């Protein structure tokens, strides 16, 4: 009588990991690229950051237990990778933004305005000057403040999620976010942007 031959099972775990990665990449690469672009401010660095993020995710996929949302997990990996890459590239020291720096010292400073009166945000952002001023203001933010602003106000995450990603409590997130907003507001309102022809007539103040 012949002993039944036991078939060797196919190397399913490896295939599953690879499938998981394909799905992860397909479903989240656009999200992470957008985040990376907003952090880096330009395409090449953003692509480097995306690759580093997904490479780390690929290697950590087997350990991901699903305690957090996949997107939160990827945002966290991307944020850490961004800090590492920045340190390696520039050795740029973080500096703190003090609340005192944002308290207007004159009436004029208090009353600086952003030229979008009567315009929807989409219409206002058609003003190239305003768009560039916003980009530059965000780029000038010290990295940890930029990250809080990008995650909360651009990616639309809750303060709690931002805290999970940045390893901070909610109070610290809100403090960083507030300073980042005040910084961008001051940069925008002091940038002297004026009316452009591609906008509604009379829609912009000087």
């Amino acid at each position: 009588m012949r002993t039944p031959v036991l078939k060797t099972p196919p190397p399913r775990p490896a295939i599953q990991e690879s499938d998981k990665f394909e799905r992860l990449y397909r479903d989240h690469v656009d999200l992470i690229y957008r985040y990376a672009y907003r952090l880096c401010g330009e395409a090449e660095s953003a692509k480097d950051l995306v690759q580093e993020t997904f490479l780390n995710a690929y290697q950590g996929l087997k350990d991901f237990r699903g305690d957090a949302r996949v997107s939160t997990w990827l945002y966290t990996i991307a944020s850490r990778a961004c800090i590492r890459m920045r340190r390696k590239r520039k050795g740029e020291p973080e500096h703190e933004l003090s609340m005192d720096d944002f308290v207007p010292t004159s009436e004029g400073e208090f009353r600086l305005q952003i030229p979008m009166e009567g315009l929807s945000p989409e219409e206002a952002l058609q003003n190239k000057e305003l768009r560039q001023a916003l980009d530059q203001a965000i780029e000038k933010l010290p990295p940890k403040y930029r990250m809080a602003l990008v995650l909360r106000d651009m990616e639309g995450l809750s303060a709690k999620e931002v805290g999970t990603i940045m390893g901070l409590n909610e109070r610290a997130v809100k403090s960083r976010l507030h300073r980042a907003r005040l910084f961008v507001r001051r940069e925008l309102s002091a940038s002297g942007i004026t009316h452009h022809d591609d906008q509604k007539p009379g829609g912009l103040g000087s």
Partner: protein
Amino acid sequence: MTKKKTPAQKNRSTPSSHDHLHGQGRCEDLLRQLSSYIDDELPSDICAEIRRHVGACPNCEVFVASLQQTVTLCRHHPAPPLTPVDRINMRRAILDAANAR
């Protein structure tokens, strides 16, 4: 700057270059809470107090509006999309790097 400071506010304020010209202590207090106000995270009595102050203080009214506009612009600022070619190339580069490690 249109309101007088309460004794408590006077005690809280320390003399600085910002504690000045316009009797600005109240405005400074407000400025510190503005993001929480914009994000609707403050108790209703504090919100009502802020609204009252802003209604009586043109400088703070402009300041609140400009901070709100800043947040609105950030929320609507688009990022350029990833091109299909970059999507494919990056995937390949990631898998090559993963296999090489």
